[in-house]
């Protein structure tokens, strides 16, 4: 299933946040969205998943979601959004319970194994490190077999070492079983490690500035790779002035 943004414009009261964005999200690929702060990246993601309605234009699903998909558009949040009163297993079960599946326990066991959390099934979120919490959230998202994963700065709340480990995890997950994702980030290193396509937004009102395709296979992109470094420099070149301007703008608000 593909997602398609059709001339989407979004406004909060009279401030244009996003202007005339048309974009295809192809299935089986990770599309990264980068841009200076306040450019409407997260708003774009909320529009994609139906948590907000675009002022103009439309978000369309092209094709039907895969078989066994329980929740086509599934988010992974920056702050994990785990229920603190449920165990790891219970947090994954939460999103399955309404469907009354006969094989719920098997699905939970499978996603916990894929995110290497099997040994922590009975732990409460307060006992877990940030990286583990985000892996639980990823397991929860995988459990509903989503058509598109909508990831809102999923690694931004983590320290840089954990971030590296989780990026490896995501690459591993994708390589074993490709999934479709929209990955919003302000971190260009994450974008060039994980993105098949990188969409660069301009500062507010956000417009598509450029789309960069990276052909290197995900599992061949290593930390500190020279080619990726060059791509990252190129992206930073695109954004640098706008990021500075956006930074200055915030102070005037």
């Amino acid at each position: 299933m593909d997602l398609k943004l059709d001339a989407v414009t979004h406004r909060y009261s009279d401030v244009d946040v996003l202007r005339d964005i048309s974009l295809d999200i192809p299935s089986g690929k990770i599309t990264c969205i980068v841009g200076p702060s306040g450019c409407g990246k997260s708003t774009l993601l909320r529009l994609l998943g139906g948590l907000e309605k675009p002022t103009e234009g439309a978000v369309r699903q092209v094709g039907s979601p895969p078989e066994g998909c329980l929740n086509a558009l599934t988010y992974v949040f920056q702050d994990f959004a785990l229920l603190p009163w449920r165990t790891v297993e219970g947090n994954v079960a939460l999103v399955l319970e309404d469907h009354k599946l006969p094989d719920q326990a098997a699905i939970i066991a499978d996603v916990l194994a894929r995110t290497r959390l099997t040994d922590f099934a009975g732990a409460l979120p307060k006992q877990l490190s940030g990286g583990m919490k985000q892996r639980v959230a990823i397991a929860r998202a995988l459990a509903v077999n989503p058509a598109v994963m909508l990831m809102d700065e999923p690694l931004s709340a983590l320290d840089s070492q954990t971030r590296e480990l989780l990026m490896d995890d995501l690459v591993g997950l994708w390589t074993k079983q490709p999934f479709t994702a929209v990955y919003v980030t302000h971190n260009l290193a994450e974008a060039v490690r994980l993105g098949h396509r990188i969409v660069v937004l301009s500062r507010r009102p956000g417009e598509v500035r450029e789309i960069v395709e990276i052909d290197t296979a995900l599992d061949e992109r290593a930390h500190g790779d020279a080619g990726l470094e060059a791509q990252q420099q190129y992206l930073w070149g695109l954004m640098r002035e706008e990021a500075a301007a956006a930074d200055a703008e915030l102070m005037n608000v």
Partner: protein
Amino acid sequence: MSDQVTFRGGGFAPKRVRGLGVLVFVLLIAFAEWGTRSGMISALTLPRPSDVLGTFVELWQSGGLFKHLLPSLSRLAVGATLGVIAGVSVGVMIGLFAYARAGLVPLVAAIFPIPKIALLPLFVIWFGIDEASKYALIAFGTFTPTVVATYAAVDNVDRTLIRMGQSFGLTWWSIVRKIVLPGAMPGILSGLRISLNIAIILLVAAEMLGAQYGVGAYILEAGSLYDLERLFAGVVILSVLGVAVSSVIGMVERRLLRWRV
């Protein structure tokens, strides 16, 4: 010069201190005993604690304790349960629905400050002089603080968790049951500490009219006869009830809120 750096952290974190609460009780009672024996406190001002204890033992041995305690406990249980269930339901509705909030919050604010004791005659007319009016008075008294605590607790539930539930397509009822109610539980339980104590206060008021037995009836009778020993024996029963309620809620909190950081 090599002075040690002064420690200035610490504090501002509650710890469990065992036995201190009991010690405060013991000291106060010992002081009253000493004062009344030495004559510093006259017998009219305060009954001697040992006499109160004697009255209490007598009450127990004569079987009077349970004759009074059991009707009171059942009134408390029925009335408080009704009030808490109604209060939590209305509080959750106010927390979730804009119309319920707009319509009911002023009403709750209007009935909160009414001394429910003042309405006892009205309840007697509405529900009769028997048990029903006593249940109603206690229920009404526990209802308002429970409503206020509950909707404040629902307001404080992390909205990102609710958005998460919506984004996974959870049903409305699942979101309320699995996200809103557990998230509001800490606030609801601390509200219960207040409303259940109000229920104990109102127990005495409820037994002012048409009650032959009950801790409240016992205290009121002793009070009208200026029998301070019996009055205090009754008051001690109420205090013990209060301590019991508080420790039960503490146990429930430790069990249900283990997840809290």
